[in-house]
């Protein structure tokens, strides 16, 4: 599994040099940053808006906004984390528009006890993905994560899929570290339980 290597304190993240070049008027350097992170921004936007058109708009708006506001980027957080925060806000704004002004926040729909205690404890088949085609598997994973409450889904995506640290996730979402931890645990357990429906070991099957 890919791990994200931490950057040593005294080592400058390569994005900082790119940001400096953009600030000095080098638009091509921004081109590099967009290509580096557009897929991640698109994924995050899809997970939050659950709508492809909205996600496309978010990619465009988030990168334009980041370009406009680049002077406000302090460099005490990573450029990527700063960009993700803009993308999350743009995604929530899109949701609000679509839901005609109803307040939407990442605190929505999390009043549930589901997933705090695992109920379905069936073990999974070895390499359960192999029982499905890539397309079927993608559909299962999409359907399963879409069923999570928004506030759990965003935490899981930022933390486990996009590789932000707990602290970065908290900062990005404006949540406390304990709140991120509690949501992450419940998100992981709920996803696990929901996936068990597809991946459980068949009765009588041995490894």
């Amino acid at each position: 599994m890919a791990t994200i290597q931490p950057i040593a304190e005294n080592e400058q993240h390569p994005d900082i040099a790119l940001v400096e070049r953009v600030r000095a008027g080098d638009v091509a350097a921004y081109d590099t940053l967009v290509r580096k992170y557009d897929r991640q921004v698109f994924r995050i936007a899809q997970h939050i808006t659950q709508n492809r058109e909205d996600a496309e708009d978010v990619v465009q708006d988030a990168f334009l906004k980041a370009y406009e506001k680049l002077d406000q980027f302090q460099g005490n957080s990573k450029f990527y984390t700063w960009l993700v925060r803009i993308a999350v806000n743009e995604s929530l704004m899109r949701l609000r528009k679509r839901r005609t002004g109803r307040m939407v926040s990442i605190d929505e729909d999390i009043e549930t006890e589901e997933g705090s205690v695992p109920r379905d404890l069936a073990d999974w088949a070895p390499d359960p993905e192999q029982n499905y085609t890539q397309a079927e598997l993608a559909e299962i994973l999409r359907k399963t994560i879409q069923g999570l409450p928004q506030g759990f889904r965003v935490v899981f995506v930022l933390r486990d899929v996009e590789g932000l640290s707990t602290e970065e996730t908290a900062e990005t979402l404006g949540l406390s570290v304990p709140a991120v931890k509690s949501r992450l645990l419940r998100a992981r357990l709920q996803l696990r339980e929901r996936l068990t429906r597809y991946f459980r070991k068949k009765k009588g099957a041995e490894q």
Partner: protein
Amino acid sequence: MTCTEFLAQLDELIDDSVTAQMRADLQEHLRGCEHCEVTLSTTRKTIEIYRSHEIYDLPAGLRDRLHKAIMERCKKGC
């Protein structure tokens, strides 16, 4: 250690941020508890499966179109 206590440490265990003593205690619990063993292994697998499969791919055509639109606006100073 009870299963509830084990569960409270599950994320730390998965993220490898437990102390050596805590890790030993958790492993001791796992040796006698099949339920927690299954919860741990399938939760790990859940994370791995979401990390390794692209479920919202950005197709090349769409990527180029978005990219062009962003860069055109940036060149004009947004």
